[in-house]
């Protein structure tokens, strides 16, 4: 009762209110306490680990990065030999992971969009096929699918020596259980001009697109941006190629001894991993795309038809932009999933980050705590970068509300 009296009598007089009962102060105190507790927890965890490692006689620290690795890696996008350092082995693994993730995301999105649209198709066969695809692939664990693809790839393909190849004879394309062999493009002097021409063409394409949009806004006249751009994209590098005296040559693979030598090879481990990851993730993306399109009310397309827009323009200008804001956030999660799932590569012998760094390097150095923390940090960074990019993309396609 006394408390109530005080409130009614001295409302607004803050001096009478005890600090304990001031919600602001109280909240602040507890937050500070919580932060101190968290900091202490992390601190004691780290010092505890260091103490225990020292007591158990286990070496620690990051000095191993500069040492010679001493093992070989089957696939590398940067120069690497067994004389390279552990740091370089780390980057080889990181690049292998990123390459399979980026290509996997590309194919998963492509297949996912096609299957998602197919599920909405009015064609009975197409629609049922898409349904079976989605329900089968998203309901079988990914690891099993990877093993299936790997065994399937290895079981079907012949070994290079059993494939009817003559030793030393060059072949353009060859698929055997050591990989898919293709000609490799070897650049010679002056080849950089072709790359410059390619970049120039892309920049010109973008600039023409902007100019055409501006002109259409101002005058209503349309411009064939796509055809012009494609023309530039093809002919500028071609002209550069001819002018610089054709500085590209092809290197073919041939059977020498046990294996194919030369050319450009996609290894079976990479093929199986890419197949497994893209097909699996595509089944989820298909459902996201279907949901996104169904989320746009039918009235929107009817209104567009009423305005005289053709079906093609209706979906491009009305349906898809509205579907995108529903599609993109869950799509981001799928991209992250695919990147993280690529760590299952270790089961089928693809030399990704977990296999090289979290496997071989961990074992040869024995520094589990350091290696595993770095591996986790890398996946965290990759995921955060992907999210940041997708958030930016999302905000650029979000509906502008007026």
């Amino acid at each position, binding site marked *: 009762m006394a408390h109530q009296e005080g409130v009614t009598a001295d409302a607004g007089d803050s001096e009478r209110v005890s600090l304990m009962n001031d919600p602001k102060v*109280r909240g602040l105190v*507890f937050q500070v*306490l*919580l932060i101190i*507790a*968290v900091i*202490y*927890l992390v601190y*004691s*965890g780290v010092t*505890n680990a260091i*103490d*225990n*490692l020292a*007591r*158990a*006689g*286990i*070496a620690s620290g990051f000095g191993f990065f500069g040492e010679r690795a*001493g*093992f*070989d*890696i*089957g696939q590398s996008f940067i120069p690497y030999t*067994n004389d390279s350092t552990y740091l370089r082995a780390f980057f080889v693994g990181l690049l292998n992971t990123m390459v399979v993730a980026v290509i996997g995301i590309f194919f998963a999105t492509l297949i996912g969009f096609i299957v998602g649209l197919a599920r909405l198709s009015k064609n009975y066969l197409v629609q049922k096929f898409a349904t079976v695809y989605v329900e089968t692939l998203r309901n079988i664990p990914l690891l099993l699918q990877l093993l299936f693809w790997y*065994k399937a790839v*290895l*079981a079907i393909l012949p*070994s290079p020596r059993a494939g009817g190849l003559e030793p030393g004879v060059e072949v353009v394309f060859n698929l055997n*259980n*050591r990989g898919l062999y293709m000609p490799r493009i070897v650049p010679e002097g002056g080849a950089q001009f072709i790359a410059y021409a390619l970049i120039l063409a892309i920049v010109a394409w973008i600039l023409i697109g902007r100019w055409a949009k501006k002109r259409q806004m101002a005058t209503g006249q349309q411009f064939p941006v796509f055809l012009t751009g494609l023309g530039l994209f093809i002919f500028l590098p071609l002209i550069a190629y001819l002018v610089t005296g054709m500085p590209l040559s092809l290197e073919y693979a041939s059977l*020498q*001894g*046990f*294996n194919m*030598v030369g050319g450009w090879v996609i290894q*079976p*481990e990479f093929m199986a991993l890419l197949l497994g990851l893209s097909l699996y993730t595509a089944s989820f993306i298909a459902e996201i795309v279907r949901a996104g399109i169904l989320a746009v009310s039918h009235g929107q397309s009817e209104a567009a038809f009423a305005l005289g827009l053709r079906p093609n323009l209706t979906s491009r200008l009305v349906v898809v932009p509205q579907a995108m804001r529903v599609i993109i956030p869950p799509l981001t999660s799928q991209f992250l999933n695919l990147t993280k799932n690529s760590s299952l590569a*270790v*089961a*089928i*012998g693809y*030399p990704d980050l977990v*296999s090289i760094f979290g*496997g*071989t390097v*961990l*074992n*040869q150095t*024995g520094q*589990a705590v350091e290696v595993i923390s770095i591996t986790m940090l890398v996946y965290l960074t990759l995921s955060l970068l992907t999210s940041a990019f997708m958030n930016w993309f999302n905000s650029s396609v979000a509906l502008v509300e007026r």
Partner: protein
Amino acid sequence: MNKKILSAVVGITAVAGLGATAASAATLDDVKAKGFVQCGVSTGLAGFSAPNDAGDWSGLDVDLCRGIAAAVFGDAKAVKFSPLSAKERFTALQSGEIDVLSRNTTWTMSRDTQLGLNFAGVNYYDGQGFMVRKSLGVNSALQLSGASVCVQTGTTTELNLTDYFKANGMTYNPVVFEKLEEVNAAYDANRCDVYTTDQSGLYSIRLGLSAPDEHMVLPEVISKEPLGPAVRQGDDQWFSIVKWVHFAMLNAEEMGVTSANADEMLNSTDPNVMRLLGKEGTFGEAIGLGNDWAYNVIKQVGNYGEVFERNVGASTPLAIGRGVNALWSKGGLQYAPPLR
């Protein structure tokens, strides 16, 4: 609400405080308290550690663990086995998940000094070799340049392979897997021309392939692979127990004490045998065990020669000769310090 926050804070600090108390010290007491020895073995390497037809673990490495259990409890069955991949094995030992690692593990300096482990002897002297298909027409490892090689990650094998090809100016294409079964499957599917691991392992793996007769092990041995049990550093008593169980089995073979004649030998007047079987001296008590520790090992598991013949010797499908694993007195390397 505030009470909840407060209790959360208290909880967190309590957890942090608990985490600060370190686990350590007497493995023997822990083992006795739980009633069995937790032994780290391979995921399946015939002759060394693999489940047999009856589903029981058997093999050379497994019998060492059974010997330890017999020494500690007088019961060779008081063992539980943890199958470990090459990659998992050291972490399992360091973290205390297992009491002893008996998993065809090579004793190297870096493992001995940097991983917080102690190697308690060598129960099999091995060396790395290569296995190929006979149809390749290869009869020396020096003809393997350009080949694809299947290998298990986290092994000394991976590094020896690199060194050997480098030293001989040859190239190869490594295909690396984490699990032994995956390496076997890939080699069987002809993903690789060559399979490399310790020679004893190659003989054992060859038996599991779809057509063992089509494969051969090349004669070259490219490395020293002393395989032995390992324990955690910092517990000398447990280290001694594991070490001396192995030595007791060797000494028993040297003295001619077997599982069959162990009871008879109890009446022996040879002071060496009397010390071994606990009739003289208190050697068992010195390492925290009963004086009949070695008797139990030999009676229930057998001496080294018996264990070798039973698991990998001439009468088994592996048919590996004693070779360098014969006793020192018979021209081999197996030598145990005297029990006195």
